[in-house]
């Protein structure tokens, strides 16, 4: 796939720029990350603050908050995911078209955070869906969200077309939505995405 660097520089002297398809693909994806307009809790306010005048997420082309998951690329899980909300979060994630990314914003989304002891709090959104970037903080500052966005862009620019999961026929395209059970969500975690740490 790769172009010989000597040939590339030779061509460049002639005014021909060789650019791998992969670069263009990654560049377009990372330059236009449209988040889904979806706030869960306190962190959602900081997410809005990140889109507001002082921090302005629009600079990265990421201000197009789409209300419909079908048109979004990025899910910012901004706040506590409760057990009552978890099926909806998974469903929203399933409804987003590939390629899609998840930022777990704040301590609650990562692990349950301060509310970890609660009976209705999911201990981390990564029990059900794969997370690309975790941002610690309660709530993380808008700067932290911008940093996460840039980290995600970096991550995207390092992806290779022949390795990404969404062209893999065997990779799961939909994640099972947990059911409301009599005492807890069933199942309490998706074993394909997450498994408890070993003893």
């Amino acid at each position, binding site marked *: 796939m790769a172009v010989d660097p000597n040939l590339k520089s030779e061509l460049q002297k002639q005014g021909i720029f060789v650019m791998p398809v992969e670069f263009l693909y990654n560049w*377009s*994806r990372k330059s236009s990350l449209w988040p889904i307009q979806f706030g869960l809790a306190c962190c959602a306010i900081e997410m809005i603050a990140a889109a507001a005048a002082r921090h*302005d997420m*629009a*600079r990265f082309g990421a201000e197009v908050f789409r*209300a*419909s998951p*079908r048109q979004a690329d990025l899910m910012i899980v901004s706040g506590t995911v409760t057990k009552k909300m978890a099926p909806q979060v998974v469903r929203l994630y399933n409804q987003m078209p590939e*390629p899609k990314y998840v930022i777990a914003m704040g301590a609650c989304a990562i692990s349950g955070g301060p509310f970890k002891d609660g009976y209705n709090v999911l201990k981390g959104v990564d029990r059900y869906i794969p997370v690309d970037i975790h941002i610690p903080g309660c709530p993380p500052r808008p700067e932290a969200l911008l940093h996460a966005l840039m980290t995600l862009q970096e991550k995207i620019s390092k992806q290779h077309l022949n390795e990404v999961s969404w062209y893999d026929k065997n990779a799961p395209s939909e994640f099972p939505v947990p059911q409301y059970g009599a005492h807890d969500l069933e199942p309490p975690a998706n074993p394909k995405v997450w498994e408890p740490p070993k003893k």
Partner: protein
Amino acid sequence: MDAIYQLIHDYCPTMPDWLALALAILLPIAIVMGVFLTVFALLTWVERKALGRIQNRRGPNRVGPVGLFQPIADGLKLLTKEDIVPNAADKVVHFLAPVLVVVPAFMVLAVVPVAKGFIAVDLNIGVLFALAVSTASVLALFMAGWASHNKFSLLGAMRGVAQVVSYEVPMVLAAVVVLMASGSLSSVSIVEAQRGLTGWFVCKPWGLVGFVIFQLCAMAEVARTPFDLPEAESEIVAGYHTEYSGFKFALFQMGEYVAAITMGGITVTMFLGGYLGPGCDLPKFGWLISACWFFAKLGIIVVINIWARGTWPRVRVDQLLGFAWKLLLPLSLVNIVAMAVWHFAPNKLVGWVESAVLLAVAIVALVKINAGQTFEKRSYRFTS
């Protein structure tokens, strides 16, 4: 078309006739499509930048110089996104709807004279064609909403149909005055009829009222704020295109923006003198200068659109329809009468005054008649 055919013939006499003819037909289409697609891409960038300025932000500035490549990135990304068709959707209609949005939007371009002597097809029923074809998008709206099998989509589609059908009426009636003044349906002769220092139709009382009505209706027709009810984000999520992802969604966006541009182009042609402007008749660069004039005027319309979007709340569906039927429709009818008065007046000044007075009276009367909906002044007491 003939001019281009002649040009090809002159420069390349060896070319067979059929090829020259085909080129003469296809070349303007390609140019118009290319130009307007570029304008569309630029417009999304301009809109995001301008909204940013309205909201004290900077807008996109990381992708390319001052964010200029943002539309390219967006387009490429949407092109490579997964295309989701819901299981319960009507697959054929679901696929056809976005196509049907884009096609009429581009078809209208055929009759917009972009520069002096440059028009894709100079139809003798140009304006009629534009008005008729642009309405076809309502079918696409309804198809999208119905086929998606989503309640929000359906609500959006119903709103869209009601809105487009209602606003079509005052829009056509507002266009009638222009046809009366120019005596032609051809867009080129409409432009040519506006020559002179105050020749633009917008400089006349009936033209001004017609322009305002037409512009409002055009905004409603292409569902721009404050009339963006079919896709009202805060109420029905994304309206008729809730279930569209990837490039189909991009097509919807493109259709909407191109329709906004073409409706702006029609407005410019009919009321703002089209490509006319100082220097448009120069022998050598006249076409370039006239194109600049055209796009400058189009820019004004576009800025009005963006400005409205960034600052105005959205109206409610009953208010939207009431506005069309109770205010715009009677006003556009009166406007036709005013045009007739202006036409048959003994001299220009009398006609000017008569039609202006008639319209002013009509506007005041209509506002008074609809006074049931006027607003209260409220006072508040303070207890301590």
